[in-house]
């Protein structure tokens, strides 16, 4: 056992962990943040995606101890003051989900994507989401949701 300190959604957490504890289990089982899902457990589906220092990262293929001192954002951390984040709102408005299992990962990946590339083409969106698998939607409405979010985000950010 050793201790690890990680900032998750703006709060510093210091916990005793086994080095082999995967970060997704740290989030779900230690912190109780179950919005981050485990789909494949093999780094393929993207359901476990979180932001580490702003970059989309699959938390099932990462040890918690590797994140000492880093800043993490999960799906629980993006709505502000009880108001959905524009990307969340866009997924709602454009029906970018059905069962919702892939949605936390899709939304987090979209946040990172739009951060790097605020006006992506449809092709860039589809390539950008290559690491996230959805069993339900056929992706069509997910792409529309990302496009909608790209349109709404600048206003929401106040620029």
């Amino acid at each position, binding site marked *: 056992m050793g201790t690890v300190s990680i900032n998750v959604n703006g709060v510093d957490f210091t916990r005793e962990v086994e*080095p082999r504890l995967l970060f997704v289990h740290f989030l779900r089982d230690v912190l109780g943040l179950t919005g981050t899902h485990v789909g494949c457990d093999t780094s393929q589906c993207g359901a476990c995606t979180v932001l580490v220092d702003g970059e989309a990262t699959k938390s099932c*293929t990462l040890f918690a101890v590797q994140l000492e001192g880093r800043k993490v954002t999960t799906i629980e951390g993006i709505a502000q003051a009880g108001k959905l984040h524009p990307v969340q709102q866009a997924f709602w408005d454009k029906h970018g989900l059905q069962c919702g299992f892939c949605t936390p990962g899709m939304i987090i*990946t979209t946040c990172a994507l739009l951060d790097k590339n605020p006006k992506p083409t449809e092709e860039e969106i589809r390539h950008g989401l290559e690491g*996230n698998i959805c069993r339900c939607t056929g992706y069509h409405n997910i792409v529309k949701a990302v496009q909608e979010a790209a349109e709404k985000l600048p206003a929401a950010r106040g620029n």
Partner: protein
Amino acid sequence: MIPSSFDYHAPATLAEAVALLGKYPEDAKVLSGGQSLLPLLKLRLGQAGHLIDIGKIPGLEYIKEEGGMLRIGGRTRESALERSEIVQKRYPILVDTAKVIADPIVRNLATVGGNLAHGDPGNDHPATMLALGAQVVAMGKSGERVIPIDKFFLGLFRTALQPDEILTEIRIPAPVEGSGGAYVKLERKVGDYATAASAAYVVIGTQGFVERAGIGLTNLGPTPIKATAAEKYLIGKKPETAALAEAARIAAQATEPSADRRGAVEYKREMARVLTGRALKKAVERAGGK
């Protein structure tokens, strides 16, 4: 899936990391991006008593051109390679390669050094580095040494790195006038390892003849393959359709694929021929030879 227990070390310097590897000779592994190592540990196909995380060591992530070489820090991530301006402008073959490795999220963690050090014939960078004639820099307890890439891949998951050595840099000769390279991969779906893939690099002289050729093949044998006979064949030839096709045919003969869910031996060998033909054609185009 949960790996078996290990001790975790996060050294702050390269010297400390090398010392730790030396301290646990049979039982320590370097942890870089973890995108090959963690799946192995989770599936318990691999095991280590000590993981030496090199992620906290400063100065191992960079991409710069210096002294006629492109120098890529051993811990440089695929996403950084893909986005690098100098790579996009001068080394399109590296962009070809990085963007077909796994998916964009995995590429935020996976490193170029790890992709070589893993010694997996299914990894994509080895073929490209073989085609380009790269060098690998390794740091061990007796200092630094430079390993030519064609002496690096020794067997399945086996490289020339000693157990206490860390891959610190990859060096690629800077492009010369009339040079061009390309990587072409066939995969069943995004994020899959290659059914077959081919990297080609050519240098065409002012008279229009091939002066240098490099061909590397992915997932077509127990190690990444350098198609030396095909490379030799091209030297002194005009890079025209018939010559490129013949080189591709010779390259395919160097493969030793095994049958699996990605295809039969004959199919993979045929794909090696087709993909090498395409990679050569694109390399020649990029070299300005149309």
